[in-house]
């Protein structure tokens, strides 16, 4: 166990691109989705630090070691007429768990959502990930169980784009 008192949360920097790539692949492995993870360091530099960044990220450090990250971006609600923040990833490396690192990351993202006037913070969790689900329940997150996530990718997307309207 390492000391939680030394955990600091800071915005990601360009020279974190490599470690952020590693963290993303570690999360994919944890989610048993490593076959989907093809993100490269170049992708991170282009999409996180270019003229129109597509995401923002925070890094958690325990002492001088990288303990985890949170990554998020805006989404929009046409009903609200306002944007919310979507938390795409939150991840803590196994050796740094149970020390409040995840809570600190989530609180920092919530603070950004609050200060920047987003109407809510949203994310998704895999249904077998009970430690995460329990954690979110404990902090009073609302589970929108009526909503099912759907996607159209690859060949099905191509086929849709070529479909003749009736």
């Amino acid at each position, binding site marked *: 166990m390492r000391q939680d008192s030394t955990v600091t949360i800071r915005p990601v920097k360009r020279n974190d691109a490599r470690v952020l790539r590693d963290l993303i692949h570690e999360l994919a492995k944890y989610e048993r989705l490593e076959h989907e993870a093809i993100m490269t360091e170049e992708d991170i530099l282009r999409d996180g630090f270019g003229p129109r960044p597509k995401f923002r990220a925070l890094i958690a450090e325990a002492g001088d070691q990288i303990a985890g990250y949170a990554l998020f971006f805006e*989404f929009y609600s046409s009903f609200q007429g306002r944007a919310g923040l979507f938390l795409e990833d939150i991840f803590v490396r196994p050796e740094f768990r149970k020390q409040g690192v995840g809570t600190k990351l989530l609180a920092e993202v919530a603070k950004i959502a609050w200060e920047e006037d987003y109407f809510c913070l949203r994310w998704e969790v895999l249904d077998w990930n009970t430690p995460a689900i329990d954690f979110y329940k404990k*902090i009073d997150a609302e589970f929108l169980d009526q909503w099912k996530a759907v996607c*159209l990718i690859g060949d099905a997307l191509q086929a849709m*784009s070529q479909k003749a309207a009736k």
Partner: protein
Amino acid sequence: MIIRPATREDVPALLSLIRGLAEYEKKPEAVVATKKDLLRDIFGPQPKFRALIAEWKGEPAGYASFFHFYSTYRGRSALFLEDLFVLEKFRNHGIGIGLLKAVATLALDEGCFGLRWEVLDWNRSAIEFYEKLGAKFLHERKVVSFDEQATRGLIKNM
């Protein structure tokens, strides 16, 4: 049928279509957006979403709204389809397919890896429609949210 990007002049019609969708989803009170919000967030200096309007014989019949949505695993964006709605009296003319096709084409043209959206679990007709089109249901994924109050609570308790 004509499908085209929404213009500033469409904003009142778009807002009433959004209200139509909320009624269909059994939560008419959920729409607090105003015309001013939509004007700012579609046409302002920092656009937050885009919308397509479907016209049937010159009348606004439906709409799709969407924005970019990043995937860290892919290192690319998908288009997130926030809303897809056709007014009841214009259904069964292929307008929903027309809108979805237009959004799918934009996704491919813009180098997105896919389209993402969400559907209410009781909305059988929509679910069947998406199944027929080869959409994949991500059954493992649960959607979680913190509203403003919960967000404030979280910050306070940290």
